[in-house]
């Protein structure tokens, strides 16, 4: 039986014909690594791009959000453990070749396609096949990722995907070791640096009080050192799975820490709780609301109004780092 090292994530699992590695989505056949469930998805829903969340890419757009199954992490607080930490096969009931995904997106009036819910690295060949077909149809493709891929895979992602949100869960290795099950944060930080400049990049961090809230300032420093224009989504974590009994983090305390961080990183959003008042884009020069959003539950938001002229602040003309002008929700409706 041949043994092959998986080339996708930094776990570098040894694959055989019988062993699918940690994520269970790849195997080795005749010495080659093969995706076990190509073009298969667990879910497909229509969403505001801000709900996923992407706040600075095609604001207002309608996204076809796809989900798969399996993950290369074992986050103890995972809110999607039913798809991430499971046998992927019975969940992957939607067989959608790229052309069909694109047709769905078009028929539903979507402006782009996003792979979220679980980790894209565990279905990379499928997504790399989808991207050119979607791009040819005028549909940018984006992903949410935990960033734990090998360096050349990060390059591939940066080239294949038009928008990427990387979850940087902490900047201390202890957190990653104890609560995520991988040895180091440095891999994710390296890949964030790789992705920046290759694609539209946003970063997310779930805050668990007492575990990684002390990293807020250091994470802001790290992101700002790459570019202060990178949007950073900070989530008030609602722990589930192995940490379901863990307390919800205090909003005021976290926001106080974020206020200081906003001095160096102006596009910090604080959400994942209903009614959050920190999900709008504030002009860093004049303090006006440039994009007004509301949180309806979940890690993202819904846009309400734009105070922009050519993506410049309508009040002071400051250029805001937003890729693409606001898109009207029903602009592709033809029926």
């Amino acid at each position, binding site marked *: 039986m041949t043994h092959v090292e998986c080339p996708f994530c930094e776990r570098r699992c040894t694959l055989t014909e019988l062993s699918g590695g940690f994520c269970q989505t790849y195997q080795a056949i005749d010495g080659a690594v093969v995706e076990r469930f190509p073009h298969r998805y*667990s*879910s*497909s*829903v*229509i969403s*505001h791009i801000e709900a996923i969340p992407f706040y600075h890419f095609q604001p*207002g757009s*309608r996204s*076809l959000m796809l*989900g798969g*199954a399996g993950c290369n992490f074992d986050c103890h607080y995972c*809110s999607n453990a*039913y*798809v991430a930490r499971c046998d992927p096969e*019975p*969940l992957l*009931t*939607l*067989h*959608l070749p790229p052309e*069909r995904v694109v047709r*769905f997106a078009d*028929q*539903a*009036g979507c402006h782009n396609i996003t792979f979220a*819910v679980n980790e894209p690295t565990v279905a990379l060949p499928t997504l790399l096949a989808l991207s050119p077909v979607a791009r040819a149809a005028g549909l940018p493709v984006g992903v949410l990722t935990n960033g734990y891929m090998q360096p050349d895979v990060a390059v591939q992602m940066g080239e294949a995907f038009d928008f990427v949100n990387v979850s940087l869960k902490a900047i201390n290795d202890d957190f990653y070791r104890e609560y995520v099950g991988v040895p180091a944060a440095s891999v994710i930080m390296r890949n964030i640096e790789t992705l920046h400049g290759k694609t539209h990049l946003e970063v997310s961090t779930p805050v668990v009080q007492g575990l990684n809230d002390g990293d807020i300032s250091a994470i802001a420093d790290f992101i700002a050192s790459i570019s202060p224009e990178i949007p950073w989504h900070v989530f*008030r974590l*609602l722990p589930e799975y192995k940490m379901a009994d863990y307390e*919800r983090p*205090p*909003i*005021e305390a976290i926001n106080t820490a974020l206020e200081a961080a906003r001095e160096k990183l102006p596009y910090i959003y604080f959400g994942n*709780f*209903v*009614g959050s*008042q920190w999900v709008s884009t504030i002009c860093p020069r004049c303090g006006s609301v440039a994009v007004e959003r*509301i949180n*309806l*539950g*979940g890690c993202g938001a*819904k*846009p*309400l*109004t734009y105070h922009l002229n050519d993506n410049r602040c309508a009040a002071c003309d400051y250029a805001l780092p937003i890729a693409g002008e606001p898109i*009207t*929700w*029903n602009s592709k*409706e033809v*029926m």
Partner: protein
Amino acid sequence: MEIGLIDVVEWQTAVDFRTGRPVVVDHPRVDLAAEVLRAHPYPGDLTGEGDRWVTNTALDLNERYAPDFMLLTYANLYFPAVFSPLSEGERAAHIVQTFEQVERFLNESGFVPVIVGLGDFVPFQGYVYLTDLEGQVVSGGMNPRYAGLNQATARDLSRLAEREGVARLFTRDAFRVQFGGCQQFYDRFPEHLVVAEEGYIFRGPSSGARPLYRVPKYDRTLPLYTSLGAVEAITDVAGLTLHALERERVALILVEGVGCKSFPLSFQPISNALHWHTYSVGDSQYLALTTGKHFVEHPYPPGYRYYVDDGEDKPYPFSAIFTEMPPDTIGARFAGRSAAVGGRGILTHAVAGVDIAIECFVRALYNHGVMAVVLTE
């Protein structure tokens, strides 16, 4: 004005419920609701404690506000049955626990009850895949047994005619001839409506990932427990309740996940059907119960492209598909004090039309907290 008061545990905020924007509000009814929310964090849909939360919260609200009409929705028999491999024995035990909570509420509050079980379950039989169709498919929701189909090709229609799990296929006109109804309903109605056989669920471009274990039975009758008189159909419950409210304090109690086969109290069977259509848990069933009007008289048909309404300017952003608060609900028609508490998010406040509606804020089983919708005028 309608105020939305959101509590996510140790943090509250108030919004203009129609626009979703934050507001500062000073109103005794809002203050009262804030205290109730703070005292009763929601335990979650799958913990088995949600129905106890309904009773605790309802008793507290009754104590503080003293309404004459209350709507309660008990939903914790629904979620574990649909989304977990619960045995029938476990389900029977859950039913006992839920009705203990219903009984506790009635014993301690003194309301005259109107209790409706919203239907039984059948084992999940399988998915009906619509991903191969060339037309546009809409099959949203947690367990869609209807799918809308637009721009269908002849091949689509012939495929559906032979597909296992498909019970019926209608054109919009054929449906309208049989069911009638309001113009708004048909303005949104899909060109074709596909109906699944009992036990089957459609799977298409807008489908979730959670595995299913049971799905709602196509119950033609529902159990109704009340001493207020005999009625025939689901659409008679609102009238019965309003009539009784002229002389008594009445609680309309909707219990999801129990039907005539599993309802533990003596009951009268009432029709849960219109022609071949049977109601199951969702906006149309709740609206039929609280407005007295069948689903074809409301602007939310099955299989419609719900997402088209979800633009930046959609009113009531916390109310999912609802673009207005239904005007003909019991709460909206009753002049006295009214309140609601529900383990069924969104539907509780939308169909109650009451002065103060408190519900869990859960979306796709994620527990975000609790919300009150408070009328200040």
